[in-house]
């Protein structure tokens, strides 16, 4: 089970993942590998299974079949902490301050002292450019600020992989950029990331690889330059055509 990991091991290995809700097959055998520090962007029409895939990686859904390995270990309850997730609707804790949101899980789960956790949280807030909002409550923040707090909260558990599920879709146009900027910086710092997004700027400039999925299967994959300039598949071409 706990085989020692080597840097050569992929950070994520997904093998023939399948998931259905009732008669609806949402994921139909998805497989991929992701190296340490790589940024993978999923694009595809709504209902294509992108979000379900992320939710399986975050253990919010149980796949019907297939395997997920994170950093060489079979993904189970104990390894859950190695994957962080940021949601479309932020899901900040409204009854806690920004600092409270970030420090809750480290204190409860990692058992770190309040002082150490607070120092870490301040460092994370600096990284997402919100140090001045430590004492604010979520309701006092803009959507973009809330989402950046959510990113900091997730990072506080020191995950090996970060999942982003359409994190800018609920934001006003002018707030999208500040969130994407933070994600770009995170990628540049070497975080392994799986991103579901409709933001082509991000896909083009930050992603190492792009997966186009539709109807629960990977239709096409490749580096962003190629996917955007010369998509092989007709479906990919049509999807990108609709977006641009």
């Amino acid at each position: 089970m706990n085989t020692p990991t080597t840097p050569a091991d992929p950070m994520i290995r997904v093998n023939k993942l399948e998931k259905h809700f009732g008669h609806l097959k949402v994921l139909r055998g998805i497989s991929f590998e992701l190296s340490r520090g790589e940024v993978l962007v999923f694009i595809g029409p709504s209902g294509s299974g992108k979000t379900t895939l992320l939710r399986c990686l975050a253990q919010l859904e149980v796949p019907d079949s297939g395997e997920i390995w994170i950093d060489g270990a079979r993904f189970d309850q104990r390894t859950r902490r190695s994957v962080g997730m940021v949601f479309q609707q932020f899901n900040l804790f409204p009854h806690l301050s920004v600092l409270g949101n970030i420090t809750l899980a480290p204190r409860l789960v990692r058992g770190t002292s309040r002082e150490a956790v607070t120092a870490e949280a301040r460092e994370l807030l600096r990284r997402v450019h919100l140090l001045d909002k430590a004492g604010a409550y979520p309701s006092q923040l803009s959507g973009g600020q809330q989402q950046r707090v959510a990113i900091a909260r997730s990072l506080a558990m020191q995950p090996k992989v970060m999942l982003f599920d359409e994190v800018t879709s609920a934001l006003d146009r002018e707030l999208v950029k500040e969130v994407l900027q933070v994600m770009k910086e995170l990628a540049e710092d070497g975080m392994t990331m799986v991103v579901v997004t409709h933001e082509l700027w991000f896909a083009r400039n930050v992603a190492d690889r792009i997966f186009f999925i539709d109807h629960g299967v990977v239709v096409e994959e490749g580096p962003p330059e190629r996917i955007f300039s010369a998509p092989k598949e007709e479906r990919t071409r049509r999807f990108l055509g609709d977006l641009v």
Partner: protein
Amino acid sequence: MSGLVFLQVAPYTFRWDVLIPYVPAFAWGLLITFEVSIAAEVVGILLGLIAALARLARWPALRVIAIAYIDFFRGVPLLATLVWLYYGVSLLFGISFSAFSAGVAGLGITYGAYLAEIFRAGIQAIPKGQTEASRTLGLTSRQIMQYVILPQALRITLPPIGNTFVSMLKDSSLIAVLAVTDLMRQGMIVASDTFRAFEAYTFVAIIYYLVTVIVARGLAFIERRYAVSR
């Protein structure tokens, strides 16, 4: 000229002055009413919270017990519960407890059934995203309930809980049948002492009315303050 017969009714003369010697007794009764109500509300809140958590538990047996408790005590009249507890339990088990304890227990157990449903609604009103975010942060189910769901649920259930306390102040008058000398019981005593039942019960009714209105307004004030200062 018509077939109507008018009863000759002597005009009733109120004699409020007969109540004056009993003012300390009424005050004492009001104090007992508050004691019983507060104690029973605390019992009700604790039982209600436990029942709500059991009602939402993963283990089916717990859910069944919680549902049975809620159904039973919402279905049985409070007066029946009180009398049964006070007289029945001592007969069945040979343990006797004071009328005060029986009253607090009966009121608390019954109110717990209603409060359980209030707490359950509050817990279920918290968006699923809160639980999901907590899970991805590695919190256990118990930690999620304790640190994420309950603090938010209790905040939104505060107004309905306040309402149950206002009802409690009035429903506690039923324990007068167990001879607990609360405000209602004092009214009964004064009525039979003075043969002025109308005055005694009117006076008692007015006090209940004033007390519930004042408490309700006070709770509304606290609610507003709390809402503003989050």
